[in-house]
């Protein structure tokens, strides 16, 4: 972890995390899908900077290589061939990876204190040293991003090069991108740049061009410019309205304090009952003369049976 003093959210933590250095601008990575040529230089730069060497996979008949994110491939170009209603083919290439949500589902779901943190600049970072390998981050993520490593059972994903950003330089993928499809700066600047680009695309005839900064997760710190923002799904399944699943919300939200309280109250009720009503004492072997009438028991419990005594 590269910055331990401007953490605005920390997994499985109910107190305020250290955030004295809070006067930080929110950052964002802007991926202009309309400028991407699918060269995968960003994938290579990511591997190089982060010292990751994924296994060499196999060709599955598409340009996707590897075919999915892994614990050692934190970003992947996804190529989709989309046929429009007019019969034209569109080759849509999207750089997939962590979106760095303002409301991260992974962090909400994580049970290990401090294994996932969110910095004041918006970067959601995994502190793998505290990861316990439960995979709840995968369950919580609306974008299906984190991957557990088969080598160490820890979860990994894009860090937005938090180490580089902390030192004042842009993420490795941004630095290497030959078409300036990937840009990096404050979220405010990136939104302004995106809006300008969307205007250009509309002039070029892409009427549905727009910015992908989904409100359902509070906005993201990785944004896309899409030529078809009305249908993000055609970019290899980018969700139209991602949000933390209500099931995850219930699992990690209200149920936790309510059920914890009921368990405590049940145990406490037992203590109070014992103190006020007392135990059911062991019945006497020889029943007292003034015992209550025995007929309610269905047989005479006060009279010793002949065969017993």
């Amino acid at each position, binding site marked *: 972890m590269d910055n331990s003093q401007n953490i605005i959210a920390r997994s499985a933590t109910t107190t305020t995390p250290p955030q004295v250095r809070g006067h930080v601008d929110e950052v964002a990575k802007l991926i202009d899908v309309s400028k991407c040529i699918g060269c995968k230089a960003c994938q290579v730069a990511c591997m190089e900077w982060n010292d990751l060497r994924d296994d060499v996979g196999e060709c599955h008949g598409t340009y996707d290589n590897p075919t999915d994110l892994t614990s050692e491939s934190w970003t992947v170009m996804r190529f989709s061939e989309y046929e429009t209603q007019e019969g034209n083919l569109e080759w849509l290439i999207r750089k997939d990876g962590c979106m760095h949500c303002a409301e991260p589902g992974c962090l909400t779901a994580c049970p290990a204190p401090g294994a996932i943190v969110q910095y004041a600049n918006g970067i959601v970072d995994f502190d793998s040293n505290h990861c316990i390998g439960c995979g709840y981050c*995968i369950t919580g993520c609306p974008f299906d991003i984190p991957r557990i490593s088969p080598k160490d059972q820890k979860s990994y994903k894009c860090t937005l090069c938090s180490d580089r950003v902390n030192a004042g330089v842009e993420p490795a993928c941004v630095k290497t991108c030959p078409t300036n499809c990937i840009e990096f700066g404050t979220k405010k600047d990136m939104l302004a740049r995106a809006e300008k680009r969307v205007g250009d695309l509309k002039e070029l005839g892409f009427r549905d061009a727009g910015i992908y900064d989904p409100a359902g997760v509070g906005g993201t710190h990785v944004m896309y410019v899409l030529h078809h923002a009305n249908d993000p799904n055609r970019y290899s399944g980018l969700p139209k309205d991602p949000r933390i699943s209500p*099931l995850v919300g219930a699992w990690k939200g209200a149920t936790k304090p309510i059920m*914890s309280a009921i368990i405590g109250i049940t145990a406490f009720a037992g203590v109070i009952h014992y103190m006020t009503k007392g135990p059911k004492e062991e019945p006497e072997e020889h029943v007292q003369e003034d015992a209550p009438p025995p007929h*309610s028991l*269905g047989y005479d419990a006060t009279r010793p049976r002949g065969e017993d005594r």
Partner: protein
Amino acid sequence: MKMPRDRLIRYSPLDRANHWTMAMVFVLLALSGLAFFHPAFFFLSHTLGGPVWARILHPFLGVVLVLLFYAMAARHVRRNLLGENDVQWVRQIGDVLDNRDEKLPPIGKYNPGQKLVYWALVVSIAVLLISGVIMWRPWFAGYFPIPLIRFASLLHAVSAFVAIVTIVVHVYAAIWVKGSIRSMTRGWVTRAWARHHHGLWAREQEEAQHREQQP
């Protein structure tokens, strides 16, 4: 060993061994599970040797509990079906809680409260097993779609909550009703205890003994 005349056997050595093995396994499961359930309980993960070991061991312990529990439960189904006087006993739950036992009707080997514990655990442990397998990393979760894992995670938490509350009630009942802990540690109860708390069962046992003694 010959049982003294004023005692009745309530739990066999196998029942007792199984019960206390399950008790230990359940406590370890509940503590490690609570650790993942709420940050306030995270420190409990150290009962299994730290959070990573807790994550690794918890599901295996769960499988042990499932095997022990259903081996026991299968042998006691009949005794836990609705029996004579059970409905009346439930109607008089106020008398039960106020210790006015003399007003209660005689009931079988298990009272309706014990039967409720039985069925709550039969159901919740089954749900825990199924949802637990769906969540189990790294072995099984990868074979299930993420929306199903989300549903399983919620179900696992809710059914664990049901099981834990049930066991809290079960433990308190054992402390409350004197003589019942001894029945599970030593296996026997006094005839007076049996007649007082489980009149129908006591009569059944005594009649069976009586028949055995007849030539």
